């Protein structure tokens, strides 16, 4: 029995080790964003906010933050709208080539970003849309829509298809049924999809780097700082980005996990 217990402990210790590998870099950059030394080493220097001050005093970084937010918001709205339509189409209709349609809908995340980046850059340049904020929004929407679709589709799975039919029988038009039955039901997942797609867009750097031209987003700025020297500003920016992304993800997950269906529709 003791051997079995020891084995179990060893296995859990291993899991802890695996988690340590995953989370060390995250925690590491968080700690060093408050460290006064330029070159990170142990023991730590004194607590300092100077990297945050440096970051906040650089107009180009604030500019990038504005671009990032604009892109993330537009992307999340567009991608969630597209995702909802796809999920609803899949839920409601059966048609020829549906498999192909769904494969097309889910494919983008499996193509390496660097290839997407090149393809988007060359195509957008061809149709005269490269180097603008809108080019980043378009590309990010392509990348993020499948996530929105997956989240919303999961929620629609739980909906009784008769619910919609019932509302038609009660005299609701298709639009009204959509507005008052389907959308309220899917609402938690729609908000979750908004958060998720915003987070995807907020962290994406490869495609943004290629198509953005002079309109840099935050990850692109990080990428460019990385090409220079050791610079703890990255830790400070990273902490900001981390907090925003985590807030979005935690919101999304809570909405997905809560059994939103029990909630009374507020009329």
């Amino acid at each position, binding site marked *: 029995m003791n051997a079995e217990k020891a084995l179990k402990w060893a296995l859990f210790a291993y899991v802890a080790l695996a988690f340590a*590998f*995953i*989370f060390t870099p*995250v925690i*590491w*950059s968080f700690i*060093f964003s408050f460290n006064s030394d330029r070159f990170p080493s142990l023991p730590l220097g004194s607590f300092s906010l100077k990297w945050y001050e440096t970051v906040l005093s650089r107009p180009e970084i604030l500019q990038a933050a504005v671009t990032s937010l604009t892109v993330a918001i537009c992307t999340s709205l567009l991608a969630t709208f597209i995702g909802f339509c796809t999920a609803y189409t899949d839920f409601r209709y059966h048609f020829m080539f549906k498999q192909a349609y769904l494969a097309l809908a889910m494919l983008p995340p499996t193509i390496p970003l660097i*290839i997407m980046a090149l393809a988007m850059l060359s195509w957008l340049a061809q149709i005269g849309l490269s180097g603008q904020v809108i080019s980043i929004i378009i*590309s990010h929407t392509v990348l993020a829509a499948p996530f929105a679709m997956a989240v919303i589709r999961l929620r629609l799975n739980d909906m009784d298809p008769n619910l919609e039919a019932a509302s038609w029988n009660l005299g609701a038009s298709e639009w009204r049924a959509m507005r008052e039955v389907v959308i309220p039901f899917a609402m938690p997942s729609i908000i979750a999809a908004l958060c998720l797609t915003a987070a995807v867009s907020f962290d994406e750097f490869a495609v943004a780097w290629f198509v953005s031209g002079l309109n840099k987003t935050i990850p692109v700025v990080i990428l460019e700082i990385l090409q220079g020297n050791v610079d703890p500003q990255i830790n400070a920016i990273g902490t900001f980005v981390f907090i925003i992304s985590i807030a979005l993800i935690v919101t999304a997950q809570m909405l997905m996990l809560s059994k939103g269906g029990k909630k009374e529709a507020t009329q």
Partner: protein
Amino acid sequence: MPLLIWQVLFFVVPLGFMFVMSFWLVKDYRMTPAFALDNWLKILTWGIFWRAYGYTLALATAAMALASLFAFPASYTLAFKASDAARRWALFFLIIPFFTSYLVRVYAWQVVLAGNGIISAILGFVGLGPLSLLNTPIGTLVGYLTLTFPLVLILQTISLSSIDKNLIEAAHNLGCGPLRTIFAVIIPAAKVGLIVAALFCFILSFGDFVSPYYLGGSKPPTLSIMIIDSTKSGQQWPRAAVIAVMMIISLLTVAFASVTAAYRRRG
């Protein structure tokens, strides 16, 4: 159907256009539509390309093997030894890294692995001398694992925990030891999930450019770095397109082979 139009316009068409562009010519730093095999001949007879190809393939395969091996004991523990609540929390935490900036995590590793970093100090302590793992294939692999390990762990845990527990009980009752249960019952039962996890790891590593660049020192370059170099400096977009098409073909081959292997019946 808005998704269909959107995805065709900004996903299928860009990829298709990239393929077409791979036959174009660059004259006086301008792309000219043409149907020429110049770029293809140039790349396919270029020794450096094939060396980069082999190197990328080897690294991605190594990352796939390491991630699968390292993740298995952890996902085994999470699937069979942990309580349901603990497993849910573990999965919840494992999703977080996807939305923390990969760039910031790579930067953290850069500092840890550098010649004056912590790993070097530990190695020096045990007598292996100060040793920089930066700009080595090991550095690249650490980066690949940072990117892929959480995903592999999640997919493995999900596929292992969906195995019918009765199957394992039966094996035990028939006198099968724990190790033999793993190899004769659990791994075959979870084969599809394990292969899909490994495949995603391969795809992500194969296309990633951050780790080989910032942790591997881009010497020798991987295919993704070659794409960036020929796109960003020098207007060699068509050649970059050739490399991208080659990458897509390779990925499709690997994906097809592993899906076939996953669903092949035994015996």
